[in-house]
């Protein structure tokens, strides 16, 4: 199951708070899809240090789709 968090109309740090809450409840095989207009480097640091992997895709309207799941192994 994918949990979608649209952070494009939320002021920081709300997108990060919601993402971390969603990751706390993440079941095996599920992922979180975060939509933003910028690259959230502080969140990336947290993910890197907490055993998560992510991929990023930019849409034509400038939206960054950041898909987060548990890192394999």
């Amino acid at each position, binding site marked *: 199951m994918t949990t979608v968090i649209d952070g494009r109309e939320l*002021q920081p740090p709300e997108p990060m708070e919601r993402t*971390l809450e969603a990751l706390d409840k993440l079941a095996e095989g599920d992922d979180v899809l975060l939509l933003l207009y*910028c*690259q959230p*480097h*502080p969140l990336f*640091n*947290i993910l890197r*240090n907490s055993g998560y992997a992510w991929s990023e895709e930019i849409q034509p309207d400038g939206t960054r789709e950041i898909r987060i799941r548990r890192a394999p192994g």
Partner: protein
Amino acid sequence: MHASLSFDQAPPISVPYRFFIAAPWFGVMAGLLLALSGDAALASRWTPEALALTHLVGVGFMLQAMCGALFQFIPVAVGGNVWSPKLVANTVQPMLLLATLLLVAGLLFSRPVLLSFAVPLFLLSLGGFVVVVALALWQTPATGMTLWSMRMAIGALAVTVLLGSLLAEALAHGLALPIIDLTNVHLAWGLGAWALMLLAGVSYHVVPMFQLTRPYPLWFTHWFGPVLLLLVIAWSSRLLLDEAWWTLAIALPLLTILSVYAGMTLWLQYTRRRKVHDATSIYFRVAMLAMLAFAVSGAVFLSYPEFGNDPRATVWLGVLAFAGVFVSAITGMMYKIAPFLNWLHLQRLGAPMNAVPNMKKMIPAEAMTGQLRLHVLAVLLLLAAVWQPGLARLAGIAFAASCAWLGWNLIGAARRYRSFRDQIREVVLRC
């Protein structure tokens, strides 16, 4: 999950804060200097008072705040690592503070020896800062135009400092250099290729993030910075080719791209789906309106030399650029960065997320809005004082008061951080 939150790339909170807390007090000094000097200060850009005012705001206020913001912004926005930020900040800032005071005193009291003392301090402090920041900006794996704008801006800071040092030495030792032309080139690199380039690059990231707008169009972000840099380089060629048609051929495109950036930012604010009317949004709106006013005034002064040749025309442009554009935009940014810093660093303490106070509690909204209103009044009075010199003292007092209020708000944010930190530590110890 939460206990393992790590912000290993973020510098200690004291690093950006020490620059932010120092910056407004240079604005206070500028306001007090104007209040003491009165109308003579704004008679032309070349009076000792005007030169001192320019550097109190440009180096004292703007550069302090921008250095502090870069320390924080590089890890957060472009994922870069600044080498030993605490050591660099502890070394650079005292030298920069002393150099600024020496420069301002040297210009104000026409004491060449003070300028000679200031130059090596500037070269050492800003040279070190440029090297450390440039390394961080070139080593980060991130991509995008925010990063490229920051790279161009840091290079431009180096050019600005070298030109400024050359000018100071020329004044101190009476070197035979084209002082006026060199000053114009120094100003173009400082305000255009350094300050505006950095402001634009940072805008690409923070305007959508904090003001909830759509992103800047890709065509705009790809072209604005490189075109701005090319135009500043072309402007520098006026040292060799000082023809009226060449000046016009560079100045008009320059004013056009300023208008496009300002218009684009206002349009993004106007068309956002969720309207946020906080101090930062309004400060940015003020800055962009001042930039549009600068562009229109500049075009009028170029087209009608009878207005442009008045020494007060350049002072008018200076007030719009320094107080209207940059002090406004930088203050708006600090009102977001300081609360965000507090939140970010309180998270590191390992308390449950709901124990960390909301960002809105870090600086009271009424304090920011009140200071914003006073700043707008100060800018309007400064603009009026250019043509109505009797208002200069009042404008100076208003500007000093608004900067002091800003300084007080930032000190309040730092105090609140300490108080929340102590509360959270107690909670964590009890668990």
